[in-house]
């Protein structure tokens, strides 16, 4: 990772952390305050990003929406990753039969596309943010788990670990000092990619009317509301859309700087 990339990544993360944790610093207004008289105002000096159908300030909403949107992305990825680390590690270190079983389970999870998985879960639980997070988490887990498994298996027989053995390191030291950190490193790159993707899928669920309830300024819900007025007020969907693209693309760039590939398989 180059120095510039490092600085840019840290700046990017810091910016979003600030936006998510203290949105009022950048947008002091109330994201829920309606003012029907000011509905559908085009972007201008009073409203940087314009206003929506209820006269709410879109800039304020985009900024305040970061917390929900990112939280969904983070929670889903954390869930997927947690599951993946457990399953992947167990599979990699297990005897063949258990490995084989876990692989099949992962394949079964993988065989249901993520949005279908989300809909399936919603079919049983009803809509909401929780099922969306669980669904996106579950459907991304197999990809991560396979990576963890193959990482650990590769590392297990790597010259690096052999060198550690030759140097007389015990199992615990080898696992703690080399195996775990090196297995997790490519995962870190994928996490960033995954967050972006999770935000996008959560937005898709909002579009289908199964995501965050109103009037929370979640980006997917805003984008979804804005698409109805695409002809009239393009800014309603442009800015939340840009926020999603910005986060997802930024996350991708960081992921790539960390050495990740585009694939999450």
């Amino acid at each position, binding site marked *: 990772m180059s120095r510039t990339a490092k600085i840019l990544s840290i700046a990017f993360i810091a910016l979003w952390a600030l936006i998510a944790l203290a949105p009022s610093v950048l947008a002091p207004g109330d994201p829920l305050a309606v003012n029907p008289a000011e509905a559908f105002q085009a972007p201008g000096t009073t409203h940087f990003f314009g206003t*929506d159908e209820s006269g709410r300030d879109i800039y304020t909403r985009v900024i305040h929406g970061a917390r929900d949107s990112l939280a969904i992305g983070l929670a889903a990825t954390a869930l997927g990753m947690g599951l993946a680390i457990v399953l992947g590690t167990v599979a990699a270190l297990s005897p063949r039969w258990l490995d084989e079983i876990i692989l099949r389970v992962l394949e079964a999870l993988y065989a249901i596309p993520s949005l279908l998985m989300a809909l399936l879960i919603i079919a049983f639980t009803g809509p909401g943010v929780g099922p969306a997070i669980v669904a996106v988490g579950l459907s991304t887990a197999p990809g991560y788990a396979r990576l963890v498994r193959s990482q650990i298996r590769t590392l297990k027989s790597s010259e690096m670990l052999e060198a550690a053995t030759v140097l007389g390191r015990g199992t615990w030291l080898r696992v703690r000092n080399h195996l775990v950190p090196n297995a997790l490193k490519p995962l870190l790159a994928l996490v960033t990619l995954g967050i972006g993707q999770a935000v996008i899928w959560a937005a898709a669920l909002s579009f289908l009317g199964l995501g965050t309830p109103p009037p929370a300024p979640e980006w997917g819900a805003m984008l979804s509301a804005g698409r*109805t007025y695409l002809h009239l007020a393009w800014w309603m969907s442009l800015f939340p859309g840009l926020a999603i693209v910005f986060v997802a693309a930024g996350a991708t760039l960081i992921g790539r700087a960390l050495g990740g590939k585009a694939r999450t398989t």
Partner: protein
Amino acid sequence: MQRYSRASRILGCAIALPLIGSLLASCSAGAGPDSTAENAKPVAGGTLVYASGDAEPSCLDPHVGGNYPQALVASQYLESLFTKDADGKIIPWLAESTDVSEDGLTRTITLRDGISFTDGTKLTAEAIKANIEHLKDPNTASSTGYLAVGKVVDIEIVDELTAKLTLSSPDNALLESLSMPWTAIESPKALERDQATNCASPVGTGPFKVESWEHQKAVNLVRNDDYVLPVGDTARADDKAYLDGITWRFIPEAATRYAALQSGEVDVIDNAQPDTIATATNDNSLGHLDAPRPGASNRIELNSSKAPFDDQRVREAFIRSVDANSGISALYFGTAQRSYSLLSSVEPLGYTDESLFGTDAAKANELLDEAGWTERDAEGYRVKDGKRLSLDFPVSTNQSVPAEQSLFEQFQAQAKAVGFEVKIQLLDLSSWYGALAKHEYDLVSAPYTKVGPSVLRILYHSNSTVPAPSGYFANNAQVKNEKLDGILAEAEQTNDEALRASLYEQAQKLVLEGYYVLPLYDQQNHFLYGKNVHGVGATTAVSSPIYYDTFITE
């Protein structure tokens, strides 16, 4: 004898077609694109593509369940015994004449001769019996039709064309009930088939018939070449519809639907977005049909059966806290008029009282203080006895357009200012019904379409708090008022028109003044159609358009 038309109200149209030409008294100023097309000569042929924004019905037989999307499509292939003329008067359609006994408990209906169903079965009194029994059969799971014929206890076939209906109590709304598509007459032979088959291809007497149903894609309707117009029209050479058929498509995305209309892929769309209606009518590029539904206005009902809305002061406080007018004007671009009535503007007996609904945050605060909701929690919501002043508001995504959802969000924000927490839950229809059935709501917006003021009985009589076989109950405000029950029962039984009007006014006053309901506007029913589509405007008693007179020019 005057020629009858089933075209009731034709707003926003300027077409002069022989059949309905003489009945256009109530036709308001035309804003359609085809003011020049007044002279367009009807041409036969062509298939109209209709794009519906509603969810695809799971059954094409409107007896089953009974919602508005079913009425829209069924109006093309099913007909009712009665319909409504331009003045809102009920007139016979498939029926030729009708008579009611002195005590109001026996209703005799005589059918027109010479009409057949599209499966070849002749229309006879047997059909009336079969249809009403079908509606009353719990296995049909009818909601709307079931309630409409609820008082019919027995059907006797007098002769081939005459049936005698015995009622449990007098019902002066019965003819209105029988004018609705949900009680439309289907072939008795077809009704004998299993429900799945009948749902896929109901058989009626209408100008079109169901040819096929490609799920998720379209219902294909073709012209009924043996159609007999029940009320003859001398100007029509034959009774056949002009169109070869109708492709009835389902395009849930509003923007896609509009784009498809703009690009000419579809000819007519329903559930047009207010902003697109405004654009389309401004630049005169598309035709617009505004056909407000009869029955109830679109309103929010306040569940008075449980806290906090069991207290009238809290109900009034909520209603005073929100500002519907500015929201409606911003969101509806002048396509919807604010209503202060329980009934649709097309109902002559509707009672309006604007003074009850003025926005007044100070008064709302005062009322809440009075009602004991004096404390506020950290988030600014009012609290009483440790409980937050919180309102559940399940909103059905299938029955509510985006503009309406936005309006509810505005209410949410406005009510918060006086200390209400409104929890809007966007639910699919099934979950929404589930929430209602479990009484998990304080606020609800449930459209109800029925012809005539007797809808008030369905919506506000205490009996309507008891679920129908389908599980649906219509009295969502949970109004349980013996006085009101008495007035509604009397209004439905009287033969005295003046008394009826005064009783219904009293009833409406009781409900409005009890702050059970926040009326918003008429049930919106906007259609946009392309330049080359003519003769759009004829509607049934429930304002669903029929395309019998419609033709397409190049």
